[in-house]
């Protein structure tokens, strides 16, 4: 027996002394507030206090805890209490997966230093990775020196625009319940056998023999899949097996499952599979070459799809241009590196398969899982857990069909938690891009035309390759008036990791090409780089590359808002060697590209006087639980505090679509606005009251006050519907878009958001290292529904942009961990000033536009532009690692 004090309480546990303390806490003691992100000490998510010192509990043997004092996020110490409150006020918890580790690291610091400086806080938090906040709010919360802006309870009608503390915040700072955190009694542990090769034929040996081993509950292969063993986020391209038949097409592909009894050692050692490696096609150039092996025989030259936009005559325009620049740019595979590896549990309830897992898209999970498992969709229920970061990769299926299959076949609960290596090897990545082309302008600096060609490595299966191929040509002009354009983007299969959705769907790669060329073009035209962009910025009533007349265009105001800082920054840069300043813009269409994209929101009022919001817009940390509620509350005319939220459980909540494409605030927000207004109208009608009437809730009744007239509606007297509501409304919104014609012309999006960022940095001329000093981010988001969540998105997007620019490069089989694959730490994100511009879009709820992906797009090109300004180095490849910067400074790259 091992005995220790856990949060002040003596516990005894019969654990092997060599077991990880994290395992003891979570699985033996049920204290699952402590999270596991890597099992290697690389992420700090599992931090606990051991005798007052923060340690990674994944690296501590249970034996060392014997006799010790352990404090976890479930603990109540003065430091933890103070930090929890500060985290809420400062908006320091977003998805919440790093929050327990951050709280513990902060608590260790505050116990010895109650008033730390920012530098001391950075040192203390440097061992805990966060992928979504950008760390600034966490540092602010730990220091808690500056006042926080968050509001608690705005009155009715004043929720939109308030920096409301996130409604799920209390759960986040208590250690929320993520995919790995629900474990029904008797659940089987599911492990996947995965291909160690990018391309290999395989044969199984004695599967029955392995299945008969003690502790093994079952072995499952593709032969066990009852339905269609092919899925894709875009149904016509369905090509990815849940469990592959030979050959495996990428390293990390699942070829078999083993279910282990609870408590059994879940070891795949000796699993009977023979691998025969086949020559892999690893680059798009190889894949397109004559006679190349075809990954999918019906896709000639390994081409998944080509997207194109053709307007005017770009070649002729360039030939007639005063200035033309030409350039190429290459990007790497980039890993989402959310701190929560994929995880979930499935069980059978009656004749329904229930799957509780982390996801960005419960509706799509349900449809695809049902197809794979040969079930009608009504017999699959998806319950989204809290999501510890998604960024696009949790749109695709991961554990869902696998645990679903095991639960279906065994009738027992089946639980699966990906290891860090498994998560990195098997899930999608940002597309590596090879981009080339030319941009021209006239003698006054006005853009004349763009010719662009991009080739995107889409990996083994389709995933979101079609979306990337279509989005890039639409956006590659940047938010600038471009009268002539020929842009093509091909998504090409290789035996690399599957490329899918990652914050921006290829647009960040395109912006790296376009915005770095813009700096060179401005220079040729003899114009200031910011003024050149302002000169060309799209304005209301102008036409996009796809021929769409634009409204509520905010890019000009964003760039103009940077002018004061730009001038000061140029002066600052001139005063020191190696200093540089860079700027870049973004625009981004919100929602699906030229496809239907509906969201449905339901609000009901119970006879008891409770207002229930069926909030199906999955909150992966970005804040839809709060934003959708703010919109619904104001549309309805009741305070946010009156709403009770139900999540995106497919059995109880209508489909609000997927959390992707920066669509939730806009599309689901608009549906929530419609539903709120519809319920308000229904209520007012019952009271014969006018539009301006005030609603007041009380138990069992609602009072409607219209000027001097006051009417009480007895909710208990109204007939209830099948869902138990006395009054309810359900509304759907689908953005008005059109398809794109053969030249890519049409109205692919109803709403666009805009932004521009300014980076100040210095480059160490001897080592090629970059120090970021400051970033100014001006974003037009139509209406800031919740300004604190907005700045959280901006800071988090910038952190990922910093990673993209300076350190992130996923190499299959080589960087499948969080110490070789580097993401920014608490010391890598500089102070950020956010400037919020609100140019309302008539199509958005309360004028709001999307923001989530926009914020990442300008960061990396602005950094590269600043590096060039500082050193003259022209980098044509990311990440700009120190050795590459030094080589570029010397003209070697």
């Amino acid at each position, binding site marked *: 027996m091992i005995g220790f004090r856990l949060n002040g309480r003596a516990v005894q546990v019969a654990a092997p002394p060599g077991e990880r303390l994290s395992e003891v806490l979570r699985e033996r003691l049920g204290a699952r507030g402590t999270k596991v992100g890597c099992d290697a000490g690389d992420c700090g998510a599992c931090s606990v206090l051991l005798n007052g010192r923060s340690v990674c509990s994944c690296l*501590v*043997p249970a034996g*060392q805890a014997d006799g010790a004092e352990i404090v976890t996020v479930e603990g109540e110490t003065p430091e933890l209490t103070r930090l929890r409150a500060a985290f809420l006020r400062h908006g320091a918890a977003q998805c919440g997966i790093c929050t327990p580790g951050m709280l513990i690291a902060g608590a260790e610091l505050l116990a010895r230093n109650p008033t730390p400086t920012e530098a001391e806080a950075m040192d203390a938090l440097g061992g805990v990775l966060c992928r979504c906040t950008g760390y600034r709010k966490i540092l602010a919360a730990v220091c808690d020196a500056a006042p926080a802006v968050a509001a608690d309870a705005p009155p009715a009608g004043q929720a939109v625009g308030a920096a409301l503390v996130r409604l799920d915040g209390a759960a986040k700072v208590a250690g929320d319940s993520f995919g790995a955190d629900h474990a029904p009694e008797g659940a089987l542990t599911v492990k996947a056998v995965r291909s160690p090769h990018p391309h290999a034929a395989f044969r199984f040996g004695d599967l029955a023999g392995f299945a008969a081993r003690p502790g093994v509950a079952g072995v499952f292969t593709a032969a066990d899949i009852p339905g269609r063993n092919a899925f894709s986020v875009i149904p016509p391209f369905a090509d990815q097996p849940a469990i592959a038949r030979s050959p495996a097409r990428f390293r990390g592909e699942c070829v078999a499952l083993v279910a282990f009894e609870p408590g059994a050692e879940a070891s795949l050692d000796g699993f009977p599979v023979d691998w025969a490696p086949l020559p892999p096609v690893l680059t798009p150039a190889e894949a397109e070459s004559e006679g190349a092996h075809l990954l999918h025989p019906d896709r000639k030259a390994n081409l998944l799809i080509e997207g194109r936009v053709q307007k005017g005559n770009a070649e002729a325009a360039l030939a007639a241009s005063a200035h033309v620049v030409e350039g190429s740019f290459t990007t790497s595979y980039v890993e989402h590196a959310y701190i929560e590896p994929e995880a979930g549990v499935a069980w059978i309830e009656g004749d329904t398969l229930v799957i509780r897992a982390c996801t960005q898209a419960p509706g799509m999970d349900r449809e695809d899982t049902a197809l794979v498992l040969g079930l009608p969709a009504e017999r699959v229920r998806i319950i989204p857990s809290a999501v510890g970061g998604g960024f696009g990769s949790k749109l695709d299926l991961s554990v869902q069909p696998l645990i679903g299959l095991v639960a279906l076949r065994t009738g027992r609960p089946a639980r699966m938690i990906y290891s860090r290596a498994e998560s990195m090897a098997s899930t999608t990545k940002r597309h590596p891009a090879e981009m080339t082309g030319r941009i021209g302008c006239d003698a006054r600096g006005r853009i004349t035309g763009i010719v662009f060609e991009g080739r995107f490595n889409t990996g083994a299966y389709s995933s979101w390759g079609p979306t990337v191929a279509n989005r890039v040509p639409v956006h590659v002009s940047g938010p600038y008036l471009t009268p002539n354009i020929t842009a093509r983007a091909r998504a090409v299969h290789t035996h690399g990791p599957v490329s899918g959705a990652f914050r921006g769907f290829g647009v960040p790669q395109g912006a790296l090409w376009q915005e770095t060329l813009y700096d060179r073009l401005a220079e040729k035209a003899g114009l200031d780089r910011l003024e050149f962009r302002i000169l060309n910025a799209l304005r209301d009533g102008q036409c996009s590359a796809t021929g769409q007349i634009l409204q509520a265009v905010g890019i000009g105001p964003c760039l103009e808002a940077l002018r004061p800082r730009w001038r000061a920054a140029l002066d600052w840069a001139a005063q020191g060697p190696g200093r540089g300043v860079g700027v870049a813009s973004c625009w981004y269409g919100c929602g699906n590209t030229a496809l239907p994209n509906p969201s449905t929101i339901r609000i009901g009022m119970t006879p008891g006087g409770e207002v229930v919001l069926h909030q199906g817009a999955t909150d992966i940390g970005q804040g839809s639980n709060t934003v959708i509620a703010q919109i619904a509350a104001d549309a309805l005319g009741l305070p946010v505090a009156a709403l009770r939220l139900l999540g995106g459980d497919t059995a109880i909540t209508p489909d609000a679509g997927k959390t992707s494409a920066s669509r939730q605030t806009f599309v689901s927000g608009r549906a929530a606005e419609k539903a709120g207004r519809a319920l308000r109208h229904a209520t007012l009608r019952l009271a014969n009251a006018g539009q301006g009437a005030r609603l007041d809730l009380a138990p069992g009744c609602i009072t409607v006050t219209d000027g001097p007239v006051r009417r009480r509606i007895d909710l208990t007297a109204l007939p209830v519907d099948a869902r138990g509501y006395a009054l309810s409304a359900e509304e759907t919104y689908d953005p008005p878009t059109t398809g794109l014609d053969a030249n890519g012309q049409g109205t692919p999006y109803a709403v666009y958001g805009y932004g521009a960022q300014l980076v100040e940095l210095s480059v160490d001329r001897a080592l090629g290292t970059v120090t970021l000093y400051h970033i100014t981010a001006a974003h037009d988001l139509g209406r800031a529904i919740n300004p604190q969540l907005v700045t959280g998105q901006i800071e988090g997007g910038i952190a990922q942009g910093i990673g993209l620019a300076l350190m992130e*490069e996923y190499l299959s089989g080589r960087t499948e961990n969080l110490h070789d694959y*580097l993401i920014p*730490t608490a010391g890598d994100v500089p102070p950020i000033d956010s400037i919020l511009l609100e140019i309302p879009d008539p199509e958005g709820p309360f004028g709001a536009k999307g923001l989530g992906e926009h914020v990442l797009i300008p960061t990396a090109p602005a950094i590269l532009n600043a590096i060039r300004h500082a050193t003259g180095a022209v980098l044509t490849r990311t990440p700009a690692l120190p050795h590459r910067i030094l080589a570029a400074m010397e003209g070697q790259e």
Partner: protein
Amino acid sequence: MGYLRPATLSEVFPAVASGARVLAGGTDLYPGQGSRLVGPVVDLTSVAALRGISLSGGLRLGACTSWSEIAEAGLPPACAALQQAARQVGGRQIQNVGTIGGNLCNASPAADGVPPLLALDAEVELLSAAGARRLPLARFLLGPRKVDLRAGEILAAVLIPETALTGRSAFQKLGARAYLVISIAMAAVRLTVDGDRITRAAVAVGACGPVASRLPAVEAALLGPVAGAADRARQADYAALSPIDDVRATAAYRRRAARELVARAVESCA
């Protein structure tokens, strides 16, 4: 035998001799494992003789001393490089449990503890049931993941001779991010200055070869006036380094970076 956590060395030796893996901070043992360590393990962290820092004449660092304990200890200025490295090993959570002995026995070419210790003329004390051995650190480290540890032997302490506790030292670490980063290259320099002259110099560079190493040619170049020492460091002969290309940097870059890191360490301790 599964997991043993003895309080005395006499219980440690038979376990080690019978092939048990040695555990201290666990930071190198747990990654890549399942939910627990499988097979015999002997945990040294309860052995009082292997813990703590004592300064009497020379400096003795028990093998199970954590990086945090080293960083927080009151040590002479000659140990500044070691204390700076202690604050840059992994993150705070790693520093709180990771030990100096584990860092040496793991023998990573990028071990942050090694260059400062080489610059301190460190020796290691190796104990077994058969007795004690003392080896210069440079001879203990044989190559990547390879050390001169005989069957049944453990690393018990790191010893810094009194003669090396003179002068001032500095550590320079280079990585692609601020925290939790495996070094691209690092350098430790210890200088003894008499008036305006450098009279003794110790220079060690890590992550630029299979093991970190002292650079006698650079040390020789540093002797002389303090003025211009950093420039002499930049111009010295680094042919002894044998860096490789990997995901973090190229060999050519590492050679240049090493030169610059040594020069900067010289600047900050001259």
